[in-house]
């Protein structure tokens, strides 16, 4: 399916002195989507955002907007607008002056400014604070001002750099819902940077996972969750058991991996040779537990093990199961089905197809 690409990042590298901040980033952003760049701090996600905004110049590579090369354009010549981590509200101005700032700079007539500011303040629900000084606002209100200040310019692409970072959890959750609504109502393209995977999963249409200056994988949340391309992605999104071993045998659909004296069968992927090292990611909720081995069931990995720990997490329980090779596997079970105790000898099993073979 060919999608309408509004912004394209092509082979972008960024060095700060001898430190590599970004390595060969390629990214296509679709019109109207909310893309979240997710990664730990120092992964380069903010740098990438600043390059898109024009606040940094890439060392190598190009940025295109609607096919036009904007790599060398200063921020004020780009149809992007940024919401900063610190919000960077102008402390000497009122809410109105902050929001109207970009419009005044563009010499738009006063009555139109008023109209547009009112409209946007209405949208972010802070119209009554119009004449308040921004230094006299609460965290959530400041947040809304910052977003309104950018949105009022109707940017093609709105960039948000961890704008909720300073807020407490409850307020963040409220604002997630708000942001989602705003995005749907306005319908322009948003790129949102965060290190919080829950935030990413809540907001995103698609997520780009960044690590060590590289864009590891871009996709919708189900793709990332079910088909992680790299070990980092598998571990970063949700919980997983990551098993690494050497490929022993290769069949038409499956491969056999030797993992410390245990054989594991996982789906075959291209580029796998006998003897090469691969990883298999199995989500804890895909692993079942039984007190008896389910023999003769086709396409299932079955192992005997002992429960060494259990952690109650409300609606489900995570069991830590030690296999005979000494390794521990996590399996989660709904609380109502959690009938085992520590030191119980049990069997764990999962379908071959539930494993994801990763070759990075």
């Amino acid at each position, binding site marked *: 399916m060919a999608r309408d690409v509004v912004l394209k990042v092509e082979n972008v590298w960024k060095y700060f002195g001898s430190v590599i901040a970004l390595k060969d980033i390629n990214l296509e952003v679709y019109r109207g989507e909310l893309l979240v760049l997710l990664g730990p701090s120092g992964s380069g996600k903010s740098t990438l955002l600043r390059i898109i*905004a*024009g*606040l940094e110049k890439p060392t190598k590579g190009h940025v295109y907007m609607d096919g036009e090369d904007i790599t060398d354009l*200063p*921020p*004020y010549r780009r149809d*992007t*607008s*940024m919401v*900063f*981590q*610190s919000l*960077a*509200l*102008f*402390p*000497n101005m009122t809410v109105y002056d902050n929001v109207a*700032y*970009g419009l005044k*700079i*563009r010499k738009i007539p006063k009555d139109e400014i008023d109209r547009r500011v009112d409209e946007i303040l209405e949208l972010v629900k802070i119209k009554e604070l119009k004449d308040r000084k921004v230094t006299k606002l609460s965290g959530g209100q400041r947040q809304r001002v910052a977003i309104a*200040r*950018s949105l009022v*310019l109707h940017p093609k692409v709105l960039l948000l750099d961890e704008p909720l970072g300073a807020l407490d959890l409850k307020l963040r959750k409220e604002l997630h819902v708000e942001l989602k609504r705003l995005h749907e109502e306005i319908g322009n393209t948003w790129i949102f940077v965060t290190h919080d995977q829950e935030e990413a999963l809540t907001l995103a249409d698609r997520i780009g996972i960044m690590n060590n200056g590289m864009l590891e994988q871009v996709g919708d949340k189900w793709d990332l969750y079910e088909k992680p391309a790299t070990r980092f992605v598998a571990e970063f999104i949700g919980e997983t058991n990551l098993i690494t071993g050497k490929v022993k045998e290769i069949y038409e659909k499956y491969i056999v991996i030797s993992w410390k004296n245990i054989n594991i069968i996982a789906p075959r992927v291209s580029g796998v040779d006998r003897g090469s090292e691969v990883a298999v990611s199995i989500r804890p909720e895909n692993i079942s537990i039984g007190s008896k081995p389910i023999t003769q069931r086709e396409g299932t990995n079955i192992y005997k093990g002992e429960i060494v720990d259990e952690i109650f997490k409300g609606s489900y329980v995570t069991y830590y199961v030690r296999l005979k090779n000494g390794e521990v596997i996590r399996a989660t079970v709904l609380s109502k089905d959690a009938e085992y105790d520590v030191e119980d000898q049990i069997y764990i099993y999962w379908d071959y197809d539930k494993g994801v073979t990763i070759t990075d």
Partner: protein
Amino acid sequence: MSEEKGLSQITNNTTKNLIKLIRYVLGNIPGFIYILIMFYVPIAILFAISLTKPSKYVVSWEFTIENYVKVFTEATYYRILWNTFLIVAVATILLIIVAYPIAYYLARVAPNIGDRLLLFTIIPVEINYLIRIYAWRVILGENGFLNMLLISLGIIQKPLTIFFYSWFAVVIVIIHEYLPYVVVPFYLNLRGIPREIYEAAMDLGASRLQILKTITLPLSKPGLLSVIFIVFIPTLGEFAIPSLVGGQTGLMLGNLIDRYLSQFNLAIGATLSFFLLLFSILVSIIMIRIFGYEALYAR
């Protein structure tokens, strides 16, 4: 038992607070009394004497407000008062205009070396200021550097006398004297503005000049307040500079006060001093009213 313990805890705390309070009081008493005896009592005496009939070497103790009326009605006084205000106002405004770009340069253009450069701006200030005033006599004098330079450049034919022993010389030397003190508060002020604020303005479409006008300058207001306190008010009482380079046109209030004190005409001297005190406090109050109290603490 636990109740008892709680009670003893409370008394314990009260005792502790009391001890703390006593310690504060004891620690503050010397300073308090010192300032009282060496400042407020002398100011009270000064004020009392300013209300007496002028008489040399003695205080007449005949009360009158004549002195204050005189100061505003007799040309000898109010001309110099006005002159003082004018010199100081012009010097302050020029200082702000001259110093602001330097502070801007140190804080925004060369932030990595700003601190070190600032040091080089400040070091000379720690040098005796009378000798530096004298150095300006050498530069601005009739046969001084400036005249020689202008003559050798063919701009003027014979030495100009306007540079020296004038209003102009006083202003120049005040600028020299106070330039670092004006750069520093603006510098600290500008450094305190987060980079993201500028980036946000740029991102919203503002050019360099527009950012300066809409963001940087308005946010420099606390620096302006410091300048009023650091330059404007102290120079109102300047005495050495006008004495050494001021001549007739550069006479200031300080010279007048000195003249009356050295003649032991204390009543007039006291009146002028007390007027200066009131005026300084008035300016301070106005500044705090305009810029807000918290600006006093703003660095």
